[in-house]
């Protein structure tokens, strides 16, 4: 009789099944619909139309602008926080981190509903500044996703590097720019990846703060609502390609350079 033993490879089986069923297969379905027309014939028309239709390009630009602004603000807000947290004494560190991550435990629609009321009091009428409100709410929503990876990267940062910088006569700004910032690039990149794509597609936030202009997510939704699976799918596929390029780009170019320098 064989002894019942598991080797480590088998532990990957559940995830592998999950991956195939819920990640790979839906992706194939999306690609299939994206590159066929309504009759099921292979076609690149949807793909071409996306880039030639002024309105969809407008949506892409609008989503990109929102995503870039949101990501930039998140980064600017999160970096000092993560830095202070990472440098603080051990006991305080985790308690404070909890304070920043705690909001994530509450459903984001609830949080935004509350924020909406506050903004209404401040602004009088939310509909006057749809873009600003969208950015405020998204930043509020995504900030923890930026803090976490930055915090992790900065905690792991070797203190002796910073000390060495100081010992060699660098001022704090110099150390920050030449030592800390470059060493935390992996954290910045994973933070940006976690914020950027959701900011391009999370149309629930726009709906909730009364921004009636479509972003990529709402555009996909509107195509699906009119039973146009093909055009909806191609947009999803294009978004996927964008984020794919982005990942490859950061991996190869930025991280690659880092390695060279070290």
């Amino acid at each position, binding site marked *: 009789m064989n002894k019942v033993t598991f080797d480590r490879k088998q532990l990957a089986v559940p995830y592998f099944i999950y991956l195939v069923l819920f990640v790979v297969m839906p992706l194939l379905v999306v690609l299939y619909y994206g590159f066929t027309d309504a009759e099921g014939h292979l076609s690149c028309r949807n793909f071409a139309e996306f880039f030639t239709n002024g309105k*969809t390009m407008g949506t892409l630009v*609008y989503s990109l602008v929102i995503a870039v602004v949101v990501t930039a603000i998140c980064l600017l807000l999160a970096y000092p926080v993560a830095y202070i947290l990472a440098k603080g004494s051990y006991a305080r560190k985790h308690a404070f981190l909890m304070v920043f991550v705690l909001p994530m435990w509450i459903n984001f629609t609830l949080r935004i509903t509350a924020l909406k009321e506050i903004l209404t009091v401040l602004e009088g009428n939310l509909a006057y500044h749809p873009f600003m409100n969208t950015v405020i709410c998204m930043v509020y929503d995504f900030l923890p996703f930026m803090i976490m990876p930055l915090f992790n990267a900065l905690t792991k940062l070797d203190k002796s590097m910073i000390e060495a910088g100081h010992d060699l006569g660098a001022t704090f700004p110099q150390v920050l720019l030449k030592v800390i910032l470059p060493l935390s690039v992996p954290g910045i990149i994973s933070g940006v990846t976690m914020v950027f794509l959701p900011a391009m597609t999370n149309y629930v936030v726009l709906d909730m703060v009364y921004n*009636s202009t479509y972003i990529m997510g709402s555009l996909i939704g509107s195509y699906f609502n*009119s039973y146009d699976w093909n055009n909806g799918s191609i947009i999803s596929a294009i978004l996927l390609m964008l984020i794919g390029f982005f990942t490859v780009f950061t991996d190869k170019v930025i991280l690659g350079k880092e390695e060279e320098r070290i």
Partner: protein
Amino acid sequence: MRGHLIKTAVIFMLMSLVLSALVLNGCKRAGSDTVTLCVCNWEEYIDEGGWDEDETIELSDGTSIIGEGSLVEDFEEWYLETYGIPVKVEYSTFGTNEELYNQITIGDVYDLACPSEYMIMKMMREGMLEPYSDGFHDPKAPGNYYSYGVSPYIRNVFSRLSIDGERLDKYAAGYMWGTLGIVYNPEEVTDEEASHWNILINRDHYRRVTIKDSVRDAYFAAAAINYYDEITDEDFIRSADYHKRLAEILNRTDPDTVQAVEDILIRAKDNVYSFETDSGKADMVTGKVVANEQWSGDAVYTLDQAEEDGYELCYSAPAEGTNLWFDGWVMLKKGINRDERKRHAAEAFVNFMSMPENAVRNMYYIGYTSVISGGESPLVFDYLKYNYEAEDEEEDTIEYDNIGYFFEEDSDEANEKYTVTVPEDQGRRQLYAQYPPKSVVDRSVVMACFDDESNDRINRSWTNVRCFDLGRFFNLRR
């Protein structure tokens, strides 16, 4: 080596078992005596029971109505008692017509569903629906509460609608109906302003009005604004075929109309507070906006809520014309699948919902207006009086005397019979929303189910309205 393979296979099989249990969440076929009926209805669109004792509706003739259990459970009980067959209702809900349609095309199986008129027509056109049996339409046969109790007005509307030569009433039985109009705050908006669709592009209410985030509702309002001069012309209104011509105009989908509507909607987008799917009701009650485009049933809900908070909102069905909408029960071919027992249970479900006391329970619970007028039973009209009739000592009252068309044929006699004395403001509030006077239904049109080409055109134009326009932003055009 073999041991490994077997173990891997076992894990794999277990996983797929768990997963298939998750995936195959369709409607199960009952193998035993019990009939399983899969019903898919709008969210919060049926009496779910659990009323408080003091919510009991006590009508003038001594009948008292209370929803203790949910109507679905009551149906199961009633069906077993009446026909001696146990039935199990698998009840699920949908959020939009498109969602329902998508669910069904993806493969969900339902026996009975409750889409809106245009979706019913779309499903009819695509051959998805099962016709009601001939016996269902006989008002004299026992148990045919729908056929017996449905309002003559609704019966008439149903019989006039057809698609591809098939009459709508062959495939659908009504459930709730109403108009499309404007809920407004009378302190901020005048009655005159609210009685025209162009309030949506009225600069005096910049960023204080909401419009529905639905292609069809927005399109209808914009088309009415576009053809304002034509459809409010005195001669046009007096013409013999006024209603027919109005329906034709407000259902136009030619490229010029679509373009004109698009331009109006772009103006509306710059002017309104938001395109809303569900937030309009709350925003109206909290005072964030002063007017919003709304279906009559939701309007009643909004008005009730505002009343609880201590202030008054009104409802208007604009003068240019309003969209007459209704939701109806349809049987799905795939679900019924020639199973006579299922068909019987499905028809009985519709009939059960059409019993006057159950129609009243639904109306109380969800605020929409049932298509049931009750035939000889006075229950529905009594419920109307119970809700709206003025107290004896009340001073400012009006005679609300133009709803005979709903309960009987439209005649002076019927109007007199169904006259009710109500507080003055009900002439433009809940009662007006629930049971619009004849003048409103005269200018109401059903919005047709457009053909694919028109739908394409309209959807594309809708995307244009909603997308960020680079050219316009950088002032390259217009």
